[in-house]
């Protein structure tokens, strides 16, 4: 098996840039290979049945969840039809990739060798793409996103350092050969043949990789703790229970480049002395589960998983465990309970999973992005990995950029980049020309960053000092039309709902905090409530059993810290400055925009709108029940809330 990798490396290098001619020609029946080459090719054929890259042009269609929801499926059919009709089957090759990250503008289609990056492509564009771009090398301007047609020159990609995501969106995620050709399993090969487990741990430690799932614990150290355990049976577990609303990098890695995760887990298993692994994936991610399952099967067929991997005597196999919809299962001891078939409730620590984890055996748990970073360290060396980032936060981090931002998507940037660069340079600023108010980072466990933090470096320590956290990397951008009190209430509603109920501070504390938040957003809050919220928040933080409760008050405490005036507006003035809190908002008609069409007066269920035809209407505040029916009915956008 070892020699297949070497051969592929030397003789059958195969990717979009450098197709492997021999292999392609052999597969197409055009070229005879030597007996030895044939053997390699035949070994690969079982998993590599598609025609490969000996083509004039290649079309990469994003088949991530985002682009699929934008209608990619019919695009593929349409491309197939047009290519067939024009008799170009042997000249154009379509690959279906994972997420390219620029989900806002999906469906994305990338054309090679030109590297043209087309956005919002519909089946109507297919004919033109083939005729103009592929056959006549012309750019189709209407499909280009602002400026350059080449992805690498676009603002969205220019400032990114795509390492973990380098292959995602570029390779066919359902084909292990694409991954191998792009360098997958080279790190594992180096570890298995040239390094001892201790050396692997040292390399990961020196690289300075810290857990990408939230905690930020040094990965090498975590491995060392598990490796030190005397037990003979140990486990590696991958936490792919990406429950943090607003984060989807783990899903995209599993969908776009699953082999990086498999390789990372195999490396961890080798380092700590485990032979079995589990990937715990949320059931809400059906595509990720399907892709990962396929990747495991293909890796097994190629001898990269299973017994005697690459002929090295190292054994490692893995299973997928599906989550069943419980946010708390992202906590490692709850996740372990869930794999064991129990209610996903956390247990007190110590013992840590490194000592007593899955089936009471020493267990190493990391998240998807962490595992996916490890092969890069082993392949390129720790110096390369540590060359970007800051002193205590090395490497790159993937952020999921969502909310009121122009370019929604996944961005991978060096640790230590500023929030301003992420939001304004890469993200293109606020959607619809709004004003930046805050960025909520780390989801229900995190906090918010405001204008004063725009130039602060984004790394573990600086964020913690600002009362926020890197967390999983969800970055929800909020503009001046977002109510910070309401968003804090929203997160508390989420954590309260997901609290498993085992410990009292979390079960009762989050419930009380939520009720106080509801009271405030409904305009019934008092100043005393605000003080109680702060006190209670500290109790829940300090006394809860697991990470869910310990971090649950963060969104509230952080918004009270930075947006106290908004809380005061709700409590003292009984007003919601952003006009979002339903009970506090009032409806008004802009007399200049109102044409007097009477539509609003007709839909108003309470007769609260008065006015005569072709005259500006008015809303009687004491009769208005704030249902919002008038806003939906107005053809002139003349009704607003305040």
């Amino acid at each position, binding site marked *: 098996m070892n020699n297949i990798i070497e051969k592929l490396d030397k003789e059958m290098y195969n990717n979009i840039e450098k197709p492997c001619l021999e292999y392609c020609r052999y597969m197409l029946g055009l070229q005879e290979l030597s007996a030895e080459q044939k053997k390699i090719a035949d070994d690969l054929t079982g998993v590599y049945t598609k025609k490969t890259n000996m083509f004039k042009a290649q079309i990469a269609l994003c088949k991530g969840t985002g682009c699929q929801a934008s209608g990619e499926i019919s695009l593929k059919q349409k491309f197939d039809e047009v290519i067939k009709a024009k008799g170009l089957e042997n000249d154009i090759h379509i690959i279906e990739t994972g997420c390219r990250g620029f989900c806002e503008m999906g469906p994305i289609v990338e054309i090679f060798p030109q590297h043209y990056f087309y956005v919002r492509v519909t089946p109507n564009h297919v004919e033109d793409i083939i005729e103009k771009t592929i056959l006549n090398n012309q750019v189709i301007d209407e499909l280009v996103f602002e400026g350059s047609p080449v992805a690498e020159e676009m603002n969205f990609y220019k400032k990114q350092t795509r390492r973990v995501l380098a292959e995602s969106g570029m390779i066919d995620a359902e084909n292990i050969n694409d991954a191998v050709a792009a360098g997958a399993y080279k790190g594992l090969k180096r570890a298995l043949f040239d390094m001892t487990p201790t050396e692997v741990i040292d390399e990961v430690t020196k690289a300075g990789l810290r857990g990408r799932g939230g905690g930020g614990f040094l990965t090498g150290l975590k491995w060392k703790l598990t490796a030190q355990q005397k037990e003979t049976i140990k486990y590696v577990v991958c936490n792919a229970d990406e*429950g943090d609303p*607003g984060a989807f990098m783990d899903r995209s890695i599993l969908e776009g480049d699953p082999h990086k995760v498999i390789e990372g887990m195999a490396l961890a298993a080798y380092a700590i002395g485990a032979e079995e692994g589990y990937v715990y994936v949320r059931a809400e991610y059906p595509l990720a589960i399907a892709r990962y399952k396929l990747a495991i099967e293909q890796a097994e067929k190629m001898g990269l998983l299973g017994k005697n991997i690459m002929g090295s005597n190292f054994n490692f196999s893995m299973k997928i465990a599906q989550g069943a919809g419980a946010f708390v299962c992202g906590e490692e001891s709850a996740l372990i309970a869930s794999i064991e078939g129990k209610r996903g409730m956390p247990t007190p620590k110590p013992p840590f999973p490194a000592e007593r984890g899955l089936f009471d055996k020493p267990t190493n748990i990391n998240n998807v992005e962490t595992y996916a970073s490890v092969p890069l360290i082993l392949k390129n060396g720790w110096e390369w990995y540590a060359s970007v980032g800051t002193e205590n936060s090395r490497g790159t981090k993937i952020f999921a950029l969502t909310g009121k931002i122009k370019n929604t998507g996944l961005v991978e940037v060096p640790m230590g980049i500023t929030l301003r660069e992420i939001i304004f340079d890469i993200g293109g600023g606020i959607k619809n020309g709004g004003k930046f108010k805050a960025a909520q980072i780390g989801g229900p466990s995190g906090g918010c960053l405001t204008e004063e933090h725009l130039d602060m470096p984004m790394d573990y320590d600086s964020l913690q000092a600002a009362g926020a956290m890197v967390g999983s990397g969800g970055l929800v951008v909020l503009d001046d039309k977002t109510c910070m009190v309401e968003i804090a209430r929203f997160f508390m509603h989420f954590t309260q709902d997901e609290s498993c109920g085992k410990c009292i501070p979390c079960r009762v504390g989050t419930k009380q905090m939520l009720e106080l938040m509801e009271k405030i957003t409904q305009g019934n809050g008092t100043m005393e409530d605000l003080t109680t919220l702060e006190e209670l928040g500290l109790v829940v933080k300090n006394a809860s059993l697991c990470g869910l409760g310990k971090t649950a008050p963060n969104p509230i405490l952080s918004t009270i810290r930075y947006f106290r005036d908004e809380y005061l507006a709700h409590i003292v003035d009984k007003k919601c400055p952003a006009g979002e809190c339903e009970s506090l908002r009032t409806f008004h008609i802009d007399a200049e925009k109102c044409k007097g069409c009477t539509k609003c007066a007709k839909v108003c269920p309470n007769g609260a709108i008065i006015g005569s035809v072709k005259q500006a209407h008015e809303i009687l505040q004491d009769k208005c029940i704030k249902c919002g029916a008038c806003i939906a009915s107005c053809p002139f956008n003349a009704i607003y809330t305040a």
Partner: protein
Amino acid sequence: MEQAMNESLDWLDEIIEGFGSSRTSLIPVLQSVQSKYRYLPEHVMSHISEKMALPLSNIYGVATFYAQFSTQPKGKHIVQVCDGTACHVRGAKDIISRIRKDFKLDAEKNTTDDKLLTLETVACIGACAMAPAVIVDGHVYGHMTPDKMMNIISEIKEEETNE
């Protein structure tokens, strides 16, 4: 529901055999039942209890812990509105309140009386870029509005009446 009562459970025995009767198989087994019947009927849980030699209380405990499982029959069509952060700030709550209003549902009652439709809110399906997103019978729709949502539901209802 009657169908579930009278049907033979041989298929379930095969599934249990496939996953193995150790405790770790419990969640995958319940997931299979949930996807077949759209809920976990009591007699099926009793059957699993016997076959897997687990106390029924344990099975009930797991069934009620995870959001994916339901002990009440769900509707034929399932509309899941994502209420993750990104969808929330881009208007998921308007979609939820519109469906609730039009179908006389509320936070407690999430299935219509004719058992045609169940409304669920889910926490982040990871399609944040297309926020607000909804999943109707497994298919993801992005950039949803209350009106677009009602159109999709009316289409489903129309298909049902034609069948």
